[in-house]
């Protein structure tokens, strides 16, 4: 990695930290407890151009790479913030950028880059299609110059805080395709143009406090030109962004892990029990040290994956998946060590540990669960039989 690049990384860290430092942990606690979207923070990040970082310069962004994106997310989480609230604006546009028509890109990307338009919802998961995306039942039928969409989605984030959303729907039913990954199409829905009643959203309360929803589509009309990529190839339009997404998510997880190490060390060094700082006890100190080492190892693999990705090395995908697994596991182990260090205070909301712990735990499940990465590595890297 060249000196110039690390220089840039340092600038990114400092730039993002400057913004984060103006939003303290109580800000995030309030946002969480009151189920309030952190609009002020997102606006500050947007105005300073951070959420348009990955959009190429010709569409009004800064054209940074995915490792840089990962660092942005890492710093938000490390500061005690919740990167999940902004990560989607950073990268949901990826599929549009890679596969959208030039007209769609010109119409939307510059406004996404400036933050005027929010594209931070991606509707994939359905009650009967979680991990197995090919089972989605939401159906899109072409009628003239429109698609008519019916079906439902679950666990859809930020629906009430977005202007645009990406939506996966079947254009050909599962029993009529040669390969189960065929027949799925990707749509860009402009919520501002959707008449009342065509999308119904019911909020789902979660421990994470965010804006999570169940969506119902009732004859939702989407202009045919809002199809991204070819009809029936939607899953591929999404999957080829997977490696990049794993890199970004790894950064997010890493930031959580570093947050917990910072917190555990600071608090533990000051908390006196039995006349000595609790970190003087090996039972407290060693798990923190161990989690720190795991984080550093995971971070090293993340940088390796990012380097390979930039060099178009075909093994980048495996490394990025492994980095995602290791970063989220290491972050969770750091969360555990930190929680133990805080003792009873970890349960008190004003210490922030429980909130960050929940966010960190969730990263082992969404957007991809650790099990699925294990099966990927088993099958595709180590050539063992497919486990399911």
């Amino acid at each position: 990695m060249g000196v110039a690049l690390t220089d840039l990384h340092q600038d990114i860290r400092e730039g993002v930290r400057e913004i984060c430092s103006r939003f303290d942990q109580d800000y995030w606690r309030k946002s969480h407890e009151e189920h309030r979207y952190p609009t002020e923070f997102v606006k500050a990040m947007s105005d300073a151009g951070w959420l348009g970082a990955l959009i190429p310069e010709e569409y009004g962004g800064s054209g940074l790479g995915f490792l840089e994106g990962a660092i942005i997310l890492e710093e938000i989480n490390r500061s005690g913030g919740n990167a999940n609230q902004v990560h989607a604006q950073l990268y949901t546009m990826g599929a549009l950028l890679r596969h959208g028509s030039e007209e769609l890109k010109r119409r939307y990307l510059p406004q996404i880059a400036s933050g005027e338009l929010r594209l931070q919802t991606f509707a994939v998961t359905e009650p009967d299609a979680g991990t197995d995306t090919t089972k989605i039942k939401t159906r899109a039928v072409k009628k003239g110059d429109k698609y008519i969409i019916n079906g439902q989605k679950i666990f859809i984030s930020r629906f009430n805080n977005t202007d645009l959303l990406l939506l996966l729907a079947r254009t050909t039913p599962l029993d009529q395709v040669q390969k189960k990954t065929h027949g799925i199409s990707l749509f860009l829905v402009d919520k501002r143009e959707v008449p009342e009643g065509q999308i119904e959203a019911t909020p789902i309360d979660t421990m994470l406090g965010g804006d999570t929803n169940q969506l119902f589509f009732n004859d939702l009309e989407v202009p045919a030109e809002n199809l991204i990529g070819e009809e029936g190839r939607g899953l591929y339009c999404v999957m080829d962004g997977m490696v990049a997404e794993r890199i970004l998510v790894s950064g997010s997880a890493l930031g959580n892990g570093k947050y917990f190490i910072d917190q555990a060390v600071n608090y533990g060094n000051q908390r006196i029990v039995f006349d000595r700082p609790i970190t003087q006890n090996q039972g407290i100190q060693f798990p923190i040290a161990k989690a720190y080492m795991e984080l550093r190892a995971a971070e090293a693999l993340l940088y390796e994956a990012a380097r390979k990705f930039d060099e178009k090395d075909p093994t980048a995908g495996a490394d990025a998946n492994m980095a995602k697994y290791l970063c989220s596991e290491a972050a969770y182990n750091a969360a555990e060590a930190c929680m133990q260090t805080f003792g009873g205070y970890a349960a008190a909301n004003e210490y922030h540990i429980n909130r960050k712990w929940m966010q960190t735990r969730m990263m082992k499940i969404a957007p991809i669960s650790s099990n699925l990465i294990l099966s990927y590595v088993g099958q595709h890297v180590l050539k063992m039989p497919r486990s399911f």
Partner: protein
Amino acid sequence: MKILVLLKQTFDTEEQIELFDGEVNENGVKYIINPYDEYALEEAVAVKEKYGGEVTAVTVGPDRAESALRHALAVGVDRAIIVNDESLFGDEYTISKVLAAVAKQDSYDLIFCGHMAVDDGAAQVGPRLAEELGIPHITTITNFEIEDGKVKVEKDVEGDVEVIEADMPVLVTAQQGLNEPRYPSLPGIMKAKKKTIERLEAEDLDIDIEEIAPKTEIVGQYLPERKKAGKVLKGDIGEQVFELVELLRNEAKVII
């Protein structure tokens, strides 16, 4: 309008200061822009945005101080100059002579700087530079405006406010409360990377090093002694007063 802003890189105020062989240990230390200079920088850029003009930032310091200038470029400064010639480093006397030589290379209508640097706390460079240039200066300002071609500032005087008018060119030093410094945007950072920073040495500035040799010398540095735990007097008021007088007489020896 031409605006000059003086920047100094200082220790991060959150850094632990350590002495090593009587010298401040600079290894692994994080540097920041002197917080008062941040206000100066913000005001310079804000004035440019409001009234038009061009802002130049200058720092006298080692290569690491370039990052302060990059930050300045990222938040909207147009030109950046570093005087990184070690033979020109020195005390406030030396530095203000060097800055005067830089300022004389152009003609500035306004010069902004912090009212003091948080490391040595001398608060001398601004006024000294103004004297070198033969222009007026106003220190510790908390508000800045331009009205009918005149500068109108509010100055903090130990809690009271003075309103002062001055003709340009003028040098002002920034006090806390002047503004809220902005943070750099990502496009700003990217643009700053592409700009060049001008480097100046004694020769470029036509400076005779002997003539500007420092007037002061650091003869020793030590950390302040750790505060000892205080003593809480007990008993009723009479007893406490009695004990206090005893202590002042026998221990502190301030009453005879």
